[in-house]
């Protein structure tokens, strides 16, 4: 019975995708969206049932469908494991997906590729389910790559847009952004593959259980190598520095995609991997790697938040915020608080998806205008959206007692608890920045003067059903935090427990207060600065720091100048100079040399008999010489 549920949860999205694909090339059909959403909902129900089953029994469900690859001693099955961690992910993924599917019916209403969109979206969910449900690393990799492709398809969904200059659009074009995302992810995937190879050759298997069982018997260097390479994989998917540029560019995709893939689910796969492989990352031997993960996560949290401070693009701000929150999750995971990371992952999924969907509403209303400097005062026409986004931002900012408060606070507390005070300080500051940019965005969008009027835009609220569909997310963004205790209890049967020390526990209220003060300060500053309307400060905007942040630290330009262009140039040189002028020319040169020597040699064939006779005499002399030589040598 439960096994069937596993299959239903897994394959309902696939069926949905294939069904929608049937209509992929025909004209828009609402029922495609409806059926897809229904199937996703079925998947959600199955996941939820499984979750409740696991909650009640505590025993994971493990099914093996069939063999996939077996060669030599390697044997990889299609096996699925539904345990506390994966069922959490399944539920979150299917829930957010269902909402996003329904949302998309409204959002993509006017798009002629409506059916195709659902096909891709469901395919993504299917890949994501494989990713989280697989019982082995190879299966995880299937999902890993699968979500990558779906992400590619969805970012580049509006493929017909032309490339423009970076000044005009930092992402150049949807198709460009899609390729960037795919390629950057591939870099990380290579790391991941190498991680798998290390594990396979040292443990003889890629099954989680076998691998984790064997880990303690492995040497430190092997473990470290495995951890490093797996984390490189995680860095790509979760867009950690320096592989982060693709995530903001990925905002070229339709907003539901950003909500689902680039906020709630796919980008958290890296975190999921670290959590999944906690027996490895939690080992004493790899403490260095784990600390690095935490440090990098902290850095990214700050780094991304800093860029969000000045950005004017509604979706990019949220993207930076996603990046920043992923940093938080890694910080938690790196510090060993896996369940907290997972919890933040889930909570973040809810409020960030909500935020994005809200942004989608705004975008829909503003006819795809994303510059928040051109918005303002939208609360009049879009009150429900305002509320939704406000709630989500509160959650994001970590205001009590919204979801983000619990999860983020726990992470910051963990940093304190581990004694990594630098990390703690940065995370606290980042929390303030988070609050600031979130509300900067909210205020600039919804409060103040109606700047959009200057651009002759007539905003209107989203369809009702869409707004209703968003409500579960809003609800969860508000209340999810209260489930923290039971969640801890639930997942720590599988994940290592993490307890604050006595001392930390003691001052927890103080720590929380610090964060709260900083966060509220951020909001207050944002309110002061933006709620009443937009006053541009030319001097500030032209300052170096502002420009640095606005240009994402010039990292995309750096990549372009030092990686992309040299690669293209080198390719050109390799082709034209090396392949054509050296390798091929050598081959042709040999042929030409032979031909030329033929031309030279035929001159002895002068046609003159006297010459011929002389050649005979020469030949006779030569023969004598050769004979004499070889006689002497012999």
């Amino acid at each position, binding site marked *: 019975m439960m096994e069937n549920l596993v299959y239903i949860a897994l394959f309902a999205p696939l069926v949905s995708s294939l069904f929608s694909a049937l209509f992929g*090339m025909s004209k828009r059909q609402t029922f495609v969206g409806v059926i897809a959403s229904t199937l996703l909902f079925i998947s959600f129900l199955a996941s939820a049932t499984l979750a409740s089953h696991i909650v009640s029994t505590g025993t994971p469900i493990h099914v093996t469908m069939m063999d996939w690859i077996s*060669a030599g001693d390697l044997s990889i099955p299609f096996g699925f494991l539904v345990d506390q961690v994966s069922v959490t992910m399944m539920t979150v993924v299917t829930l957010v997906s269902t909402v996003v599917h329904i949302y998309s019916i409204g959002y993509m209403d006017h798009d002629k590729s409506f059916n195709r969109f659902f096909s891709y979206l469901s395919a993504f969910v299917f890949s994501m389910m494989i990713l989280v449900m697989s019982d082995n690393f190879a299966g995880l990799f299937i999902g890993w790559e*699968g979500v990558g492709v779906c992400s590619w398809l969805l970012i580049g969904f509006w*493929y017909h847009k032309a490339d423009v200059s970076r000044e005009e659009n930092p992402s150049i074009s949807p198709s460009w952004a899609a390729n960037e995302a795919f*390629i950057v992810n591939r870099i990380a995937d290579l790391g991941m593959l190498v991680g798998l190879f290390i594990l396979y050759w040292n443990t003889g298997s890629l099954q989680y259980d076998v691998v984790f069982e064997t880990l303690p018997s492995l040497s430190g260097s092997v473990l470290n190598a495995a951890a490093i390479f797996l984390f490189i994989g995680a860095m790509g998917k979760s867009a950690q520095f320096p592989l982060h540029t693709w995530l903001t560019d990925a905002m070229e995709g339709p907003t539901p995609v950003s909500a689902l893939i680039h906020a709630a689910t796919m980008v958290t796969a890296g975190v999921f991997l670290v959590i999944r492989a906690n027996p490895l990352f939690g080992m004493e031997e790899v403490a260095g790697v784990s600390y690095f993960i935490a440090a990098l996560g902290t850095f990214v949290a700050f780094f991304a938040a800093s860029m969000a401070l000045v950005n004017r693009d509604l979706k990019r701000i949220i993207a930076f915020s996603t990046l920043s929150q992923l940093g938080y999750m890694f910080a938690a995971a790196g510090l060993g608080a896996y369940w907290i990371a997972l919890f933040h992952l889930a909570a973040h999924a809810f409020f960030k998806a909500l935020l994005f969907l809200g942004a989608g509403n705004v975008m829909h209303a503003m006819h795809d205008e994303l510059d928040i400097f051109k918005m303002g005062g939208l609360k009049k026409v879009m009150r429900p959206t305002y509320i939704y986004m406000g709630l989500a931002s509160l959650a994001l900012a970590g205001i009590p007692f919204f979801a983000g408060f619990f999860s983020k606070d726990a992470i910051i507390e963990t940093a304190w608890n581990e004694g990594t005070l630098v990390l703690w300080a940065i995370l606290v500051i980042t929390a303030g920045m988070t609050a600031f940019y979130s509300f900067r965005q909210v205020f600039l969008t919804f409060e103040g003067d109606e700047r959009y009027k200057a651009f002759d835009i007539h905003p209107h609220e989203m369809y009702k059903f869409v707004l209703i569909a968003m409500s579960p997310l809003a609800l969860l963004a508000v209340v999810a935090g209260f489930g923290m205790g039971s969640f801890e209890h639930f997942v720590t049967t599988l994940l290592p427990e993490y307890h604050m020390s006595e001392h930390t526990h003691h001052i927890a209220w103080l720590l929380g207060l610090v964060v709260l003060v900083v966060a509220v300060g951020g909001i207050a500053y944002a309110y002061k600065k933006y709620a009443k309307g937009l006053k541009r400060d030319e001097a500030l905007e032209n300052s170096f720091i502002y420009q640095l942040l606005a240009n994402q630290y010039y990292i995309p330009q750096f990549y372009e100048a030092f990686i992309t262009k040299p690669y293209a140039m080198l390719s050109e040189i390799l082709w034209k100079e090396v392949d054509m002028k050296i390798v091929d020319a050598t081959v042709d040169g040999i042929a030409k040399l032979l031909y030329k020597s033929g031309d030279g040699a035929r001159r002895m064939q002068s046609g003159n008999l006297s010459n011929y006779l002389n050649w005979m005499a020469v030949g006779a002399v030569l023969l004598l010489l050769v004979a004499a030589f070889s006689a002497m040598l012999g």
Partner: protein
Amino acid sequence: MDNILSILVFFPAIAGLLGFIVDKESARVYGITVAAIEFLLSIWLWVSFDASNAGMQFVEMIPLIPDFGVSYYLGVDGISLFILIMAALMTLIGMISMSITENIKNMIITLLFLEMTMMGVFVALDAIIFYLFWELSLVPMLYIIGAWGGNLRIYASVKFFLYTFAGSLIMLVGMLFVAYIYHNLTGVWSFAITDWYALVLPVEYQLWLFGAFFFGFAIKVPMFPFHTWLPYAHGQAPTIGSVILAAVLLKMGTYGFVRFSLPMFPDASVMMITPIAVISIIMIIYTAMVAYAQKDIKQVIAYSSVSHMGIIMLGIFAMNAEGISGSVFQMLSHGIVSGALFMLVGMIYDRRHTKMLDEFGGLAAVMPKYAVIFGIMLMASVGLPLTIGFVGEFLVLLGFYQISPVMTLLAGTSIIIGAIYMLTIYKRTFFGPVTNEANKVLKDLTPTETWSLIPLVAIVIWLGVYPKPVLEPIDNSVKAMLEFMDEKAITKEAKELIIVAKSNQGGA
């Protein structure tokens, strides 16, 4: 039907001869029918193949020149079985999708003869018979490229012929030397590969012979720096020529390494791991970069073939069952995928008579079906899991990791740079606005085209999801071969490096 292999080899040839009588108008149908029957025969071969038997099956042996040790000696094992089927399939599909109308009868007859030689190479167990089909395959291909090719067709076809011919002559000397040694040791002349397997050669001899065979195979593969004939051949060849060249003819080289070099010269092979791996990595990275610089879609795919062949070469020299099985599987995968890609390029060429990337853009809107199938093949080509391309590539890299982690990492960049050039051409061809007026009126795939591609798409996904029916027989034969190599190896290094699968170590 014990002589099914003979039938497989000579049925197309006889059909080709009879084809001279068939009327020009019906030649195409005739060809398709013959190729279909041949394909069914190959499927029958698979059905009657005993997957649990790792050795040679359906063996036929008729002495031809006993004084010289040449015999008509055929057999098939897990390694060659699927290459045979793929050759039959690609010929059939290539013929169905063929758009050539000029001199169609000559084309059909040539293709049928070509099919005979392809079949022959992969079933031959006598070195001379192998060599015979190997060389003979050049002739129809020369004609196909030269008669139906582009502007530089004569240069390309002659280059193809001479380059390969030169390499294989050196291989021939190697073969003669092995026969000589065999004669010296046993007093009997024999060119039978299975007899040669029994020879335990001194390391020095192994190295020389490995070198001799290397020339023949490396040029065919083609390995860097012997690869420059390939872009010309592909660039100039008609679609059907490129399809068969990429799908089957290149595999002859890598098959040769598996069939000859490894089991005959295990010690030399082990000693040559590093040089070959270095060349393979150059192939993988360098040609992928060169592919990126191309302006012509077909050239991109041609260079990408070289890059993918690098992966296959690497896998062969992984010296473990994972790597070699993966490599053989990758041969099939590359055959199907690059064959399909060449067909796809051919289809757009039929419409626009150009293959230059600059001419295109935004085709996804005009030709959605085409874009979808191209996309699937592209994803298979970059090794997306659950497509055929992943299984081989994964196994190869996994296998080679055992030999050298650093080199695996370098070789693994193929998944990155492969994505770079593939996605770039996809973007430049299919994405963006439709700028070129001529592209706005392009017709999407015709039913014939669609239906010739759909089986390939099906295979790409089927073997990506469930490779077992194919991988298992391959793996069995590979394991047996490795065990044999391990027993035969004389140097300590070789004994250490050749990994016999645990599941196969029952006796020892």
